[in-house]
């Protein structure tokens, strides 16, 4: 059987990885791995993750990696970057970690224009804890804590992270949203989010629309429909802010 080539920056002893079948994390992490390879930065990248499904990436890469509590990846990466500006710090988190419990860190690191790259996986729910409401849960979407569907009059509307961050960041920031459904674009955005840190232009943030068939309780076709139709309709994909020229849609 022919296996697709693994990025060099992946850590082979921990493969196959532990994400559920159909989960989008593996695709996002492949794009990140290929971007690291392409930019030849494996030896000076520090990868950080928190608890939540992103945790399962703690030993995913053959790069120095560290793990912390929910939402706290951002300050840990900031602490490392401020101490060792020569290192490339990549924080990897879920929508709960970034937009809810760690939102103050995300917001303030963006405002301070911290020279880190933060990657946030948006799968519209808290997956590792069993599928509860997330800041990104779509209106009407059922979760374990919104069993009758998200009622926006009670829990508000889904967080549009990149839109918010684009509004508050300085020129030089890179802010984009990609989807695991468009791999080539995802890889390009991933590379730019890293390159922006390498060039010291500013804060870099990439939200990745991803899938969670386990908690969505969807089959393959339904999973893909939800991602491509419903999620993309609410969360438009593209570059919202880029020092690399006109934003790509």
């Amino acid at each position, binding site marked *: 059987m022919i296996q697709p080539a693994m990025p060099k920056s992946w850590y082979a002893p921990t493969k196959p990885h532990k994400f559920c079948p159909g989960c989008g994390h593996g695709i996002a992490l492949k794009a990140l791995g290929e971007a690291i390879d392409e930019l030849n930065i494996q030896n000076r990248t520090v990868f950080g993750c928190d608890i939540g499904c992103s945790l399962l990436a703690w030993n995913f890469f053959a790069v120095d990696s560290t793990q912390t509590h929910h939402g706290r990846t951002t300050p840990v990466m900031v602490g490392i970057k*401020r101490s060792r500006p020569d290192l490339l710090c990549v924080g990897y988190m879920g929508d709960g970690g970034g937009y809810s419990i760690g939102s103050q860190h995300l917001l303030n690191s963006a405002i301070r224009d911290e020279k880190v790259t933060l990657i946030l996986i948006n799968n519209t729910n808290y997956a590792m804890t069993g599928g509860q409401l997330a800041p990104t849960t779509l209106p009407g979407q059922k979760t374990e804590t919104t069993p009758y569907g998200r009622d926006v009059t009670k829990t508000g509307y889904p967080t549009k992270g990149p839109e918010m961050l684009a509004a508050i960041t300085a020129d030089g920031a890179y802010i984009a949203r990609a989807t695991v459904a468009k791999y080539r674009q995802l890889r390009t955005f991933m590379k730019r989010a890293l390159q922006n840190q390498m060039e010291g232009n500013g804060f870099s943030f990439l939200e990745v629309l991803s899938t969670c068939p386990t908690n969505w309780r969807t089959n393959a076709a339904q999973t893909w429909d939800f991602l491509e139709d419903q999620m993309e309709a609410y969360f438009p994909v593209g570059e919202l802010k880029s020092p690399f020229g006109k934003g790509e849609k």
Partner: protein
Amino acid sequence: MVEKPITGSRKAFMTGNEIVTWAALASGADIMFGYPITPQNEVMHYWTRLAPRFGREFLQTEDEISAGFTVCGAVQAGRKAFTATAGPGNVLMQEPFGMAEAMRLPVVAVIQQRGGPSSGTVVYSQQEVTLTAYGGNGEGHRIVYSVATHQEIFDYVIKAFNTAWTYRFPTFVLGDGYQAKMREPLELYDPAERGIQLVPPTPLVGLPGAIGEDREPQHLCNIYSLEEELYDAVLRLEKDYQAMAPLVVEWQEKNCDHAELIVVSHGVVSRAADDAVQALRQEGVRAGFFRPVTLRPFPQQQLREALRRSGAGRLLVAESSQGQLLRLLRQELYGERVPIDALLMPGVGIVDEDIIAKVKSIL
């Protein structure tokens, strides 16, 4: 070549917060992360004025959670980093302090206790003993120095960095609002001048060498899939902690010979206790003085030994809290039959007259 913050030694008359800054500079601290809370603010004020002169860094974070976690990041990157906080800030920092325990991160934090619970006062207390020694969802694998004088603030901040980087447990200098804000004479010195070797920091991430060729990648983690894995990890922490304890434990003992009663106190209250015991001795009252300098690890054997040697039939605990030191004492002296009296004054200062009166009411 950046100049040394302190060359030789010199006398000074300054606030405790200013001393923290000078001591951190002398310790070779590279970076401070902090968030404003009274009564520690002036640590940041002095640091931000002095640090750039010596090539050191500062970041005011969005909250104390972030201040704690940025310190955790910085020490992983191999920099001597520290923070200072108090009260509700100390509560928020328990999350990163727990991570530091789990991952053996040499985090240094100065705690200037204020009144509690909750917002309490911005003034003074000794109510952060339990929190600092045993906060978090772990087992209290921390080192806590409770300082009493301005000279000690300087000495123990320097010591805290060395202890932290030697044993890799989070290390605290526990002060209070009085010590933070008051001025008192002391001597500042270059540690090298006193024969104190500064322990160099070592990184955990961003290591030299090509991954896969020269070395394996670092995969640092503080979460475990299996309860047995966690059990083993905690036992390792406990084993290392117990092995370290006798090497870092510190205490002070005075006038305990032939004492009928020993006054136990820590931090700034021990100054009043010391004076009270001396005054009582002059009046012929056989009082003794014992002060744990490290609250974690606690000088348990030393206190038991002092009890035995003195033959003292009573202990008196004096503290500016409703029994936080008292609880430690009961736990550490389990099995001793000695009755323990207590002078508990949560959130307010204790002076020698208070202790003298209490001792006289007992004996």
